[in-house]
């Protein structure tokens, strides 16, 4: 069969659209006029029009092209569309960064809130029968601050906190947290020391070995939850 060149390739690209019935009236007229003049396109349409129309008629073909699951492609496919990439990717990156910053600042805020929920109680030595008294508001962690006369920085001391029934709620036999002002601090969750009377005992470990010269210091205090 003789091969012909298309006389107008711009109109010629509408060949298959014509076969599939995709052209509007104006376009169809333009293409039909082209068919009158172009042997190439005319031969193509003459040979394949019924066969190409079969493409849009056949149920088998419909099932074949539907197997791909094009329904989902619409939303997902659009996201990956090259044209859209230029918009979606920077937007997605910016959104991700914004989320990271929001989370970061929120987390920092959370940290600060946690710190603000800690209350410090300063224990001072009292005479026998008297005790420090503190009112605690809400469920907070408690920093118990105390001074142990003669305490040395870095040296190990034994600290015991017991409630009014003698039950030990906190014990650290190697406490080394005294600073140069002989001041030490321990932090305890309020859950561990609810309202009640407590006794904090601080002892020098070296003195414990030599029982004859004990310098154990006691602090009595009472916590009341408001």
């Amino acid at each position, binding site marked *: *069969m*003789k*091969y*012909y*060149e298309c*006389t107008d390739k711009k109109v*010629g*690209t*509408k*060949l*298959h*659209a*014509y*076969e*599939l*019935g*995709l*052209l*509007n009236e104006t376009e*169809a*007229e333009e293409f*039909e*006029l082209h*068919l*009158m*003049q*172009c*042997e*190439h396109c*005319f*031969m*193509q*349409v*003459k*040979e*394949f*029009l*019924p*066969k*190409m*129309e*079969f*493409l*849009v*008629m*056949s149920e*088998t*073909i*419909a099932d*074949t*092209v*539907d*197997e*791909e699951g*094009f329904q989902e*492609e*619409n939303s997902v496919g*659009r996201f990956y569309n090259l*044209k*859209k990439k230029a918009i979606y990717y920077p937007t997605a990156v910016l959104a991700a960064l914004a989320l990271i910053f929001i989370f970061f600042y929120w987390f920092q805020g959370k940290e600060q809130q946690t710190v603000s929920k800690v209350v410090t109680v300063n224990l001072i030595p009292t005479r026998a029968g008297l005790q420090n008294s503190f009112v605690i508001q809400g469920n907070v962690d408690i920093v118990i601050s105390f001074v142990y006369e003669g305490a040395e920085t870095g040296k190990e001391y034994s600290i015991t906190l017991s409630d009014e029934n003698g039950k030990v709620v906190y014990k650290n036999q190697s406490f080394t947290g005294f600073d140069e002002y002989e001041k030490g601090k321990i932090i305890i969750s309020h859950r561990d020391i609810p309202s009640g009377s407590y006794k904090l005992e601080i002892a020098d470990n070296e003195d414990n070995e030599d029982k004859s010269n004990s310098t154990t210091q006691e602090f009595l205090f009472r916590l009341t939850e408001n």
Partner: protein
Amino acid sequence: MTDINLQIEALFRLFQRGDKTVQNQIIEILRERFMIIAKRRVLDRDIEDIVQESLLVVAQKMERVSSEISFEKWAYKILRNKVGNYFNSSKLHKMKNEQYAVRLQELNLYNINLDPDFKMHLTKCMKKMVQYNKRYARVINLIHKGYKTEEICQRMDISRNSLFVLTHRGRKMLLECLKEGGYCEVL
């Protein structure tokens, strides 16, 4: 049939110069084209009549056609007018909008006569197209679902011209596949 492109125009110039022997040749070439074009526009049973009427007008008036206008364009206008009259003067007037749907129904019957092996091979080729040219397969898929050209463009996020180019390339691939099966002579 002559081998040159633009053959009708060339033959018509001969006719205008006094060579009346080419008239039958011109009419035969026009008949072939008119049949194909009318096939897209009117029901199968009426094609022959419309083409005959159009060719009659062409034969009667071609002597008076000015040499300044395109003969093919003039002949095509005659066919278009006949197709227009066909709709306006018959009961088909009301079904103009549904015409294509009716035509497709007829094609259903027509396609029963298509070679079953060809149908099978075409289906195989479409399976290949689904793998290698998903966008083309998507167009066919949307046509099957009844979407119009604008809706197809919208759903695929492409322009009208891009759609035409896409289908044109898809067709080339499809014909290559048909050729492998021995079903395609024109390429």
